């Protein structure tokens, strides 16, 4: 009986909890991976998950973010900047 419950528990964890958690963190995986991509790679078809040429360029251009805040958040470049912005927020949150 007890082992049956334990089995059910592990099945639930593997087939429900882990997929759900993956869906919950999925956008953050995309965000982090996009933030390390070059602009060319961001616009590449098909997309990549692990950046082929990881770059810290986006993190360096955060300074410019504030000046470009008036732009419409449309398209690719602001998105990667948003990712960077989010990353900074996260650091503020956790440090």
């Amino acid at each position, binding site marked *: 009986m007890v082992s049956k419950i334990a089995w059910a*528990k592990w099945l639930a964890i593997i087939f429900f909890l882990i997929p759900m*958690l993956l869906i*919950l963190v*999925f956008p953050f995986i995309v965000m982090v991976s996009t933030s390390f991509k070059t602009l060319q790679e961001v616009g590449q*078809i098909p997309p990549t998950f692990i950046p082929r040429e990881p770059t810290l360029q986006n993190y360096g251009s955060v300074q410019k973010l504030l000046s470009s805040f008036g732009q419409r958040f449309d398209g690719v470049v602001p998105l990667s900047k948003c990712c960077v*912005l*989010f990353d900074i927020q996260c650091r503020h949150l956790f440090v």
Partner: protein
Amino acid sequence: MAVSTQVAALPKVETWRQSFARLLLADFENKTAYLLLLPSIASFLALVIFPLATTIEGAFSLTDAVGRITQFGTLKNFADLLQDSYIAAIVRQTFLYAFGTVALTVVVSFPLALILNQKFFGAPVARAVLLLPWAAPLAISAMTWRWIFHDQLGALNYLLHVSGITQRDIVWLGDANLAFAAVMFVEVWSSVPFMTITFLAGLQSLPPHIFDAAKMDGASPWNELWDMTIPQMKKIFMIVTLLSVIWAFRSFTVIWTMTQGNPFYRTDISVTYLYKLAFKNLDFGQGFALAFATFLLLCIFSIIYARILRSEEM
């Protein structure tokens, strides 16, 4: 009873002046409390009551193109709203969106909370990961989702291609039904953490000894779930569901960030549609009217919510 005491204690009955003075004195003694409440009352008046009053006034007025009220006392806005060719679809979508997302969120969250309530290796990590969508500003995660749902650059289509489910580039946010499903999905995604944590808190507040007693009496885990856990969680269920319905009705960020109601108003709900009415069509009167109608609807839910919160039984 009232009559007899009144007759017996007639000389001691205080006049309304005396009772007013007594109340005033009590207020005076509590004046520190009122002083401390003053900032919140002031901000409540300025930030809630004033816009609300303006909205109600505007709903019954004619307005010009910059939202100034030109003539008060008309029902034209509501009549126009009923004549609007999209309004029936908007109402249907609003209800589908609000109740659909909440139902889906409950269906996902309660099992998640049940699992997280167990002890297993990595449970603290799982609880921390669960809260991640909450740590991010909703507008940014919604933008990321829009990016994921992109037909050519998006990660979702890529995953579908790689796993061999389809080779087509599905235009998620271009097709009305798919876009609506996508928007609902993101809304569910964003509300799962709060609901799961609330359920988890509820589950952990259940007294453990009654479960031990039930086990002694030979209750199966299924019995425990259906006959003990869920009935005891009833109040939490109702509170969380109502709160989420209210939140879902006024949810603006996800839809506005992902689709802006496109294609053809098919992903609009009342809040985004009233924004369009007021700030795109510059028909502020109709916008006010729709806002007022939404407000009335939410009032009903709020009253039910307050009733449940106040009731001691259950």
